[in-house]
């Protein structure tokens, strides 16, 4: 009896222990590490390299050690957009890149470097004086960490924490320094977690910017992404964004609207964009379905994503859909900023620092023609003060032979512009960790000072008077590819009020009608009916007559 009681007590204790364990999964990259170590096909174990067995005190020290073997890596990185945040679009002549464009999320980088550059592949970019020629300033770990512990907090100008520090400042919460020796000795290929550390959190939080990229994609199910399914194909980002010399293909500045090339053949000289669906699936991807031939007829007009990404933000994480800066700056009676949560309780619907937001999950995309050309509204460009200013405008039409219909997220906002120059303004919002100034909006809530400082940092004039203008920014949707069984069905587009209701320039059966054609159709149907009745009647009559 005692044994039974003892056994039950032990069972209870074990159950308690299980229940008491916090329901927090280990960091994804840590899980990946265990699997990677066991199944790694790498010919190098970085923990055995003498040069990495140092007590590293800073990121650049690690980089110098990396470069002692990977001698060309930093030079390669220096040529990429991930490093320069600068890109000259050869077609439009526009100078793009993160440091040049304005968006309608946190708006722009100038004057906010120390904060924004948490997502730069470098160390120390805190102002206009950053040394872009320094090899030691290249951050290898942000892409090659496999421990899941390497973090670059906002405000540290792209540096990891190198000592225990209170973060965010005055929060009472402490963060530990990155264990640089351990991280350096554990480096490996990029992963969904490392790319996602920045790309899942664009716009200032999880799922904010893209809609089809969020932390649910770190370990997605087949339902969420058929290619990245951890139990299936388990693609990493680099599987499609096949990288050569650290140059990562796939860009929203020069997207491929229509890839008319056949599937890539190994060994064949091919300069096409490797990130497109056609690059693997070719131009006739439907093989076994009953409707294969009919579906393949659609591929010259529809991007694969249009049917195969039925919704975005499908991972139970809502994406931000609107951001109204014009309501920012409200304070409590005692002058303190405040936050109001939205109906879900998970997101802010108002923040004194940023204004009003809305979030949405399972979002039905909007659909537009895209031919690969895109034009941005940059600082200095005129805005539409009476309507909506397009932050980026994708070109495309049904007749140019270069376009396909794409699903897009359209992010709508209101942001400041200069009443004198009639162009967008950059608010100086954030300061570096532990710093303080009189102009940062998130500290002082004074628009004039923040906009003046932002304009100065961006090298733009500021007339002193400002207002807010409605803006839209368009994001082509290309991730979160659903299993084929969940692709859109015919009637979801071929119907009145269907998905493609607003796509102009094409005749779509089911959606569109032509009165003459409809009349002729009904006339034919009526004639057939009359024919059947008359024929039947005559036969009945003749049979009775004969009988």
């Amino acid at each position, binding site marked *: 009896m005692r044994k039974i009681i003892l056994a039950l007590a032990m069972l209870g204790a074990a159950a308690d222990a299980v229940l008491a364990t916090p329901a927090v999964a280990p960091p994804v990259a840590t899980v990946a590490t265990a699997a990677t170590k066991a199944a790694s096909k790498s010919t190098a174990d970085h923990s055995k390299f003498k040069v990495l067995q140092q007590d590293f005190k800073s990121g650049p020290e690690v980089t110098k050690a990396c470069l002692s073997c990977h001698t060309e890596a930093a030079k390669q990185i220096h040529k990429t957009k991930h490093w320069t945040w600068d890109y000259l679009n050869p077609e439009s002549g526009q100078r793009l890149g993160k440091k040049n464009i304005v968006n309608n999320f946190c708006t722009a980088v100038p004057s906010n470097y120390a904060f924004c550059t948490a997502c730069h592949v470098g160390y120390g970019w805190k102002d206009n004086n950053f040394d872009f020629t320094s090899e030691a300033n290249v951050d290898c770990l942000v892409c090659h960490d496999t421990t899941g512990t390497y973090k670059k907090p906002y405000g540290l100008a792209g540096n990891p924490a190198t000592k225990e520090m209170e973060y965010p400042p005055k929060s009472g919460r402490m963060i530990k320094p990155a264990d640089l020796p351990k991280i350096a000795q554990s480096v490996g290929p990029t992963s969904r977690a490392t790319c996602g550390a920045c790309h899942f959190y664009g716009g200032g939080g999880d799922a904010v910017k893209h809609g089809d990229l969020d932390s649910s994609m770190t370990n997605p199910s*087949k*339902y969420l992404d058929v290619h990245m399914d951890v139990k299936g194909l388990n693609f990493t980002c680099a599987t499609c964004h096949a990288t050569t010399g650290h140059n990562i293909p796939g860009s929203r500045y020069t997207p491929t609207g229509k890839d008319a090339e056949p599937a890539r053949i190994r060994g064949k000289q091919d300069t096409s964009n490797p990130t497109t669906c056609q690059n693997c699936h070719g131009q006739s991807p439907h093989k076994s379905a009953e409707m294969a031939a009919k579906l393949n007829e659609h591929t010259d007009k529809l991007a694969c994503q249009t049917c195969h990404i039925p919704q975005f933000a499908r991972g139970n994480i809502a994406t931000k859909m609107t951001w109204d800066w014009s309501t920012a700056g409200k304070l409590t009676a005692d002058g303190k900023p405040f936050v109001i949560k939205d*109906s879900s309780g998970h997101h802010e619907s108002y923040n004194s620092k940023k204004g009003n937001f809305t979030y949405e999950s399972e979002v*039905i995309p909007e659909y537009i023609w895209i031919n690969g050309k895109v034009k941005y509204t940059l600082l200095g460009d005129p805005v539409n003060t009476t309507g909506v200013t397009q932050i980026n405008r994708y070109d495309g039409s049904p007749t140019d032979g270069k376009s396909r219909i794409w699903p897009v997220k359209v992010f709508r906002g209101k942001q400041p512009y200069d009443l004198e120059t009639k162009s967008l303004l950059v608010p100086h919002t954030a300061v570096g960790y532990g710093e303080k100034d009189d102009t940062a909006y998130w500290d002082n809530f004074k628009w004039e000072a923040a906009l003046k400082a932002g304009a100065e940092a961006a090298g733009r004039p500021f007339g002193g008077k400002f207002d807010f203008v409605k803006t839209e920014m368009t994001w082509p949707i290309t991730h979160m590819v659903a*299993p084929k*069984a969940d692709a859109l069905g015919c009637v*979801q587009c071929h119907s009145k009020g269907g998905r493609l209701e607003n796509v102009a320039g094409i005749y779509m059966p089911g959606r569109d009608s032509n009165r003459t054609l409809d009349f002729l159709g009904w006339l034919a149907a009526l004639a057939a009916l009359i024919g059947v009745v008359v024929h039947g009647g005559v036969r009945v009559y003749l049979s009775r007559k004969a009988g």
Partner: protein
Amino acid sequence: MKKIIVGFAVGTVLFAVVAWNMAGGLMFVERASPFGMDETIARIQHNILNSGTGWTLTGLRNPARAVQSDGGNVLPVIMVEACSTRYSGPILKDDSVRFLSILMPCKIAVYKKNDGKVYIANMNAGLMGKMFGPLVGDIMVKVAEDQQKFIVMDPSQPAPQMIVPKPAGEGGGGLAGGSGC
């Protein structure tokens, strides 16, 4: 005479066909919401709690969850469930209409459709109640009046917080306090 009988029979059949086709549409009511899923649900929940007619929230059910966990792609659907013992009590006490417990608790569905809009659907309690005699008819008329208050979407009012029930077993249901039915 024969013509009258035939005409009556044809008329009856035609009426039955039309009624049969329209019945589905009359039994349920669907309308678009000006808000997103979460806010629509939250507003309905708070309307229910503030109705002052004894209604309590009895659950928030997600019928899409099972399909999604099975690997299927379904647009969001949430059922807001509410109950008022003031109305359910008399029905549950009467053996002749006790089978109507199948309609309990009162449900309001909030879902997204392929046009990207959020919709609200509920049973036309007033019409349905009339089929089951005076007791149920009287009760259901009052339920229908309350239902109309539940689905008022007043943009001048700030968005309330959604009330998420604590998990209570399988099926995505769960009780949010209240008496239940």
